[in-house]
């Protein structure tokens, strides 16, 4: 819609409204001055004006609503196009990395035995960086796999999964002197509906992040509960937090927060978690305060038998 059309449409109700106020005022004055004679016509005019006003308001609401929907549709479409273009790019990148990386690894394996002692440290660094690239390629492959995967959905005991994931990360948490607490509602959580192993991957990623981005002597807390619609898992840490400017981008592939670049990671963990939660028709929300901590909240649907 052109700007002048919008202006006309939006201002119409205001013009009509002032007209109505004027008409009512005239009506009251007329009532006072010429009892009876103009009463009907002025009252009728006021009525007409109010009908027009109501009509104008309805039209305005409809136009606004339509506009809003259209903008949303355009935005969603643009977002989808952007996302799929980005995925295609990552797939190509992944593909182009594979052959050179294979050759480098083979070359390193060939050189390994003939490296003089004084060059061992240097050689090891090259090997480590190659492994880092290898991990990146594997993570990209994992992300691409999620687009084609068939979820093996079952009724999953979330308390069980949390317990397992926590037992896996406990050692790394305590080596950093982090307090790792699990809090659960006093009764057994209702089972959720999902791919147990993928949910474990998602939770594991989130806990690894919490541990990585929380300084020594911090606290990490996992809270599991449920509301009327599903299960709720919160992973709360007293870590470095995420700068507000980074928050809108944290799910993007290979995005690293501006205060997290010193800490090793693929930059794909959260993208992966987000995709896993989306595949489960769940929801993930992250709120964070710099230098205070982060709260990740997951909402997951319950298994059919326990759904209300």
């Amino acid at each position, binding site marked *: 819609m052109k700007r002048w059309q919008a202006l006309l449409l939006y201002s119409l109700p205001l013009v009509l409204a002032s007209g109505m106020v004027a008409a009512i005022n005239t009506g009251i004055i007329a009532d006072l001055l010429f009892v009876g004679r103009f009463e009907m016509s002025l009252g009728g005019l006021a009525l007409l004006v109010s009908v027009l006003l109501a009509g104008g308001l309805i039209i305005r609401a409809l136009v606004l609503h339509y506009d809003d929907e259209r903008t949303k549709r355009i935005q969603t479409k643009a977002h989808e196009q952007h996302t799929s273009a980005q995925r295609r790019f990552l797939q190509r990148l992944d593909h182009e990395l594979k*052959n050179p990386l*294979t*050759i480098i690894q*083979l070359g390193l394996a*060939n050189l390994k035995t003939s490296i003089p002692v004084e060059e061992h440290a240097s050689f090891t660094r090259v090997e480590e960086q190659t492994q880092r690239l290898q991990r990146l*390629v594997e993570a990209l492959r994992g992300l691409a796999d999620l687009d084609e995967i068939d979820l093996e959905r079952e009724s999953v005991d979330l308390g069980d999964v949390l317990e397992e994931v926590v037992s*896996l990360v406990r050692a790394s948490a305590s080596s950093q002197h982090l307090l790792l607490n699990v809090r659960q509602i006093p009764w057994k959580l209702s089972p959720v509906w999902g791919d*147990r192993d*993928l949910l474990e991957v998602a939770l594991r990623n989130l806990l690894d992040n919490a541990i990585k981005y929380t300084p020594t002597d911090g606290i990490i807390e996992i809270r599991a509960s449920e509301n009327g619609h599903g299960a709720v898992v919160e992973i709360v840490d007293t870590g470095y937090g995420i700068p507000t400017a980074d928050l809108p981008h944290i799910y993007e592939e290979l995005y690293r927060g501006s205060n997290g670049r010193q800490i090793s990671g693929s930059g794909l963990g959260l993208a992966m978690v987000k995709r896993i939660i989306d595949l489960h028709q769940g929801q993930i929300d992250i709120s964070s305060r710099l230098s205070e901590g982060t709260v990740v909240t997951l909402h997951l649907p319950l298994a059919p038998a326990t759904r209300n």
Partner: protein
Amino acid sequence: MMSNSNEKTKILIVDDEVDLLAELGSLLVRSGYKVETACDGCRALDTYQRFQPHLIVLDVLIPGIDGREIVRQLREANDWTPIILLTQVGTSAERAMSLQEGADDYLNKPFDPFELIARIQAIVRRVQHAGQPTSSFRYHNCEELTLDRQKRQVWLSGKELMLTARAFGVLEYLMLNSGELVSRDKLLNEIWGWAYAVETRAVDVRIAEIRKQLGDRADWVETLVGQGYRFLGEVDRR
């Protein structure tokens, strides 16, 4: 057709990247194999006829006749020379297809060079006992246990075992590679796919499921702590 102890095992490598052929070739020569290379499908078949290798390491995406077509041609001619496919895509569908068409094994690029050597050794060992790749057989039997790969069913003493799809996949992989140590990462990549490549208990959970179903024959599936799993029973295939 397999090499005896006096003769070096001959390996043909096929890939369109010349640098890869050079590095891989040199690594395999160092590891004690006799190696020839080819950079496209037609040359691969020519070299194959002349060189008569004991094993082929074959990239899927090569110019001319592609890797999978070569596997098909050889198998149709009843030639069971072991083939390890190198793939780039590595989706579960592609993996399943490679094995169905008669490849003995496959590796996703980029691979750990020593993993490739381990696989070559495993296949050479296996082939000394049976000519055909284990993946070309439908039924895998171990005493009163029968695994039907096509129907995805397992029977123990005439009773069907109720296994989840992933537990079946694990048992199938272990039986296909019976007697060999299979790492947890390997199982995760093969059966779960790359999205699951995070340290979790996923594999242990399925191993426990298999053991429970096997009952007093649970000891067929051996755990080597920190290393992986191995199927210990003697497997007949048909």
